[in-house]
């Protein structure tokens, strides 16, 4: 077969040029061409289940992926209720659209900095597209013609200046998700800050889990290909990398919020933001554990952690809710003092907070890379560790239990991939699904006019979780199959 030297040289040249002229904020200012450019039946718009996965990736993702309806969702009754709470004065359709531009479309649509500051009504096509192809794969103006070359392979595609985002590595895919599913005030030159105001208005709190999110969207890629091998060989690895990236993104966001709350505002390079200095609320409550505050204060139902000493590892008892418990609860449980110290009130105020948060963000991005390099077969080790930990103590609260539950589930899934442990792991998974999973869900309140506001683990009992989990694992927790 003839070696495609021409196309190889062409793509190498283009990448070299990209590297020379590339900007750090690489998506900002690049050309967005819209999902429609992928829709041809000879490209990615073929009939679902016909031919190779790439051939119908557009059709599958547009028809069955919740990202495709993220824009249309902004016009249902729940969204209108949220917008009404956020912007009571937005009584006309154009005012409603402007409120969406300010607060919502940076995540719910494929939006550019120009889109969020525009004063025009939203177009139906833009809304209908929702989170389009380029939201995850990057603006395609530069790489659309290149990506059909056989030489367009490997990490060079994801050099920042190409505009193409890495959706193939675990860390890359997680980084793509957290831009919205955790948030950022700088990525892509726009603000994606799902803060306490939005939660109070009715938006669900963000609890990103890469493994579940990746599992829940229809796979418009080849699950059997080499690219997906890393995702299939260890649920534990995917979950840990996702959590580290999530924590890093949350820390970065917290750092940016701290800066934006200062009177001088955010650094000038964050052009396109609609916020100005000093108007971002501080402290930003969505940085912290929701249920530390949102719980009944009656003595009977107060869920203070069981501890032997005066100050709990989670610091609930001293009135300081844990910072971003969804991501940090497990590390806090393991005694990560840097997290405690970084997210405590301290001299230096917001500036100091921001600097410390940046350090945490950097540290956890490194940790994510380390997690991605850990060998896959860690299921039994993790299962043993969790069992031993639970034998010592119950989780402090629902967040800590949730992290244990998710790690346990991932460890068992990994164990089930090994033939000698498969039946054992599956039997425990079934037991956990029956006995423990219901504890982790919040009570249904369908029919309530305020269903989105009242979801909390108000009936959760850590001791119950501990006993039922240990029961599912067996008294010793590590019995041979």
């Amino acid at each position, binding site marked *: *077969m*003839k070696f*495609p030297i021409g*196309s*190889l040289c062409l793509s190498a040249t283009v990448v070299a040029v990209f590297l020379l002229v590339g900007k750090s904020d690489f998506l900002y200012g690049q050309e967005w061409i*819209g999902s*429609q*450019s992928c*829709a*041809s*039946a*000879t490209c990615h*718009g*073929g*009939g679902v289940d*016909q*031919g*190779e996965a790439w*051939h119908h990736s557009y*059709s*599958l993702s*547009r*028809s*069955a992926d*919740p990202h*495709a*309806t993220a824009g*249309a*969702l902004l*016009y*249902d*009754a*729940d969204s209108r209720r949220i917008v009404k709470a956020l912007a009571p004065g937005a009584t006309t359709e154009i005012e409603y659209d402007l409120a969406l531009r300010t607060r919502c479309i940076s995540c719910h649509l494929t939006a550019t900095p120009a889109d969020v500051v525009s004063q025009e009504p939203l*177009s*139906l*096509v833009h*809304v*209908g597209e929702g989170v389009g192809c380029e939201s995850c794969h990057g603006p395609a103006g530069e790489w659309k013609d290149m990506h*059909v*070359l*056989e*030489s367009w392979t490997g990490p060079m595609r994801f050099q920042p200046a190409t505009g193409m985002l890495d959706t193939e590595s675990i860390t890359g895919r997680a980084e793509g998700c957290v831009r919205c599913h955790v948030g950022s005030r700088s990525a892509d030159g726009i603000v994606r800050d799902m803060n306490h105001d939005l939660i109070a208005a009715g938006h669900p709190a963000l*609890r990103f889990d890469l493994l*579940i999110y990746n*599992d829940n969207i229809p796979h418009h890629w080849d699950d059997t290909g080499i690219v997906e091998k890393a995702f299939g060989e260890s649920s534990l690895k995917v979950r840990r990398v996702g959590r580290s990236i999530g924590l890093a993104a949350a820390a970065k966001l917290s750092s940016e919020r701290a800066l934006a709350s200062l009177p001088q505002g955010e650094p000038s390079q964050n052009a396109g933001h609609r916020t100005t200095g000093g108007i971002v609320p501080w402290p930003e409550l969505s940085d912290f554990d929701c249920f530390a505050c949102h719980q009944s204060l009656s003595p009977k139902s107060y869920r203070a952690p069981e501890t032997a000493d005066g100050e709990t590892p989670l610091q609930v008892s001293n009135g300081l809710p844990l910072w971003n418990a969804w991501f940090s609860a497990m590390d806090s449980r393991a005694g990560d003092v840097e997290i405690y110290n970084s997210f405590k009130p301290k001299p230096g105020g917001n500036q100091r907070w921001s600097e410390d948060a940046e350090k945490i963000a950097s540290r956890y991005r490194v940790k994510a890379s380390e997690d991605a390099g850990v060998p896959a077969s860690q299921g039994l080790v993790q299962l043993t560790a969790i069992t031993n930990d639970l034998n010592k103590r119950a989780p402090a609260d*629902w967040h800590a239990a949730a992290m244990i*539950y998710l790690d346990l589930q991932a460890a068992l899934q990994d164990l089930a991939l090994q033939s000698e442990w498969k039946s054992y792991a599956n039997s425990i998974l079934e037991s956990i699904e029956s006995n423990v999973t*219901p504890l*982790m*869900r*919040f*009570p*249904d309140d*369908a*029919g*309530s006019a305020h*269903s*989105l506001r009242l*979801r909390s*683990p108000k009936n959760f009992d850590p001791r119950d979780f501990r006993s039922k989990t240990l029961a599912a694992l067996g008294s010793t927790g590590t019995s041979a199959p």
Partner: protein
Amino acid sequence: MDIREEGKSRSQRINIDYYRQKTWLSRSRGLLALAATILTAGYCVYVLASGNASHLSTGPVASAHASFENECRKCHLDFTPISRDSLRFNSSTALDRLEEACQQCHRVDHHFRGMMKPEFATLDQHCSGCHTDHLGRDNNLVNVASGKCTNCHGDLAATCLAGKQPQVKSNVTGFSLEAHGDFASLKNGDPGRIKFDHAQHMLPGQVDAGMKGAFTLGNLEANLREAYRKQVKGTLQGDDALVTLSCADCHQFAGVVGQPLVGDDEVGRHISPISFDQHCAACHPINDPARTKDTLPLPHAAPWKEIEMVIASKLVGGQQLGSIRMPRDTNRKTPLVGEGMTGSLQRSADENKERAIIAAKVSEGRAAAEAQCLKCHEPNDITDQAIASLRSTEAAPLIPERWFSKGIYDHAAHRKIDCSFCHADAYAKSAVGPVGEIEVVQGAIAENGESAEQASSVASTLTHSSDALDSERVMIGGIETCTGCHRSAETPVPASITDESVHKILGGQSNWASDACIECHRYHWERPIAPDSVPAVTEPPASSQAVSKEAVTQEAVIAQGQKAHGANADADALTIVGGAFP
């Protein structure tokens, strides 16, 4: 010795009153005169009584006219000669009658008669000047010698009236680039409005060497896939085989689908127009975001309101079938911890808002469809108004149906010749050999069905120019592709077609063919039929039914071609009516 006859002996030999004696001839003269008169009268009575006019004719008429051979007055006036050489020839009487008679069946109009000088106009009116009859049943009335054409076209300046010179070449004297000029469409450019790249489509998998995304059979619409699946050494290709197109996959002879090429003496020997549903839809279904395994592609060339309604229906239907997810749908596989026991969020029940959601998704679908339309169409051709006009039966196709705007071409007669001989630009170029070689290689794939690996190997040698927009160039060969074979009998075989590789491309057939004008050109215009002048239809004689049917069918075919060129009222175009194809 000289012996002279004596007078005596002469008087003895000849009676002196011999002139008074009656002979048998003088005695029977009256009888013979009477007999001759009776016989003549009898012959006349017989001729008149029997109605057999052949005794008065110069010869049998052609079979097409045999049914009225004995009805001389259909064409002739009494004692009015029809020959231009006759001393008593009068065009205003004899030719008027003849033309009227011919047009009872052949609804043809004059041939630019109004532009001709009177002596040439007479030639145009003189049907039998070209279509000479009474030369026997087998006489081919449409086999008109080229000299009849060059009589005028050899010097149109002398033929036409002052100020009425035609736009065509004025001195066509034969069939060569110099004597005839090149084909009009090559000079006028491509009037088509479909963006297309033949060379890319001729590549195995439709991609260049070094590119991803080669199309496999599995990528085709499932219900249209079989038409493109080929035999590989007796076994049908699998779904992983590359789609490898041959010319005939899209360019098919008109005629009965599924039958071999139509015969040389039948009509329909041109290429059928390209149809989206037949030739494009397998690879290029118009899909929208609501295209799933349960839903179908969007209809082609439908009004946009219909498209939007179809998308809306697919959204609702697909959601009910579980293959389309709408906002708040709860078909996620794994609920996140913290969600409700059922993993569900409350669904909106506000119908107005639901309509807004559908409207947004429909708009997205329409935008996706439009983007696909614009792959091949110009923006002006996908408006509702343009679509409505294109759906009209009177609308000209967006790809011209014929490329010989002033002539005709018989693809079936040339079917042994490889397409690349005349349409070389339609093929991808290769670093390994000339176009002919490529065609042979690709022909082998198309006909024999090579494996995906072999096709891929071929693909690695092929490439095409990505800026080749075939809608901007006419992809037929020039007259030089014809004159190699179509030459006078005296012209030797040119070197250009004696090469072995060319011989193979020519399919091994004879390298000589007639260069007569009538091989490609027709003379007559269709005469408009006034509603009140349509002649009464009478049942034709049995012997002429087949011919009449053929003529009607040809008229339909020709009218179709005429529509394609919009030639009805265009004095610069040629329309052909009646007469058998050569």
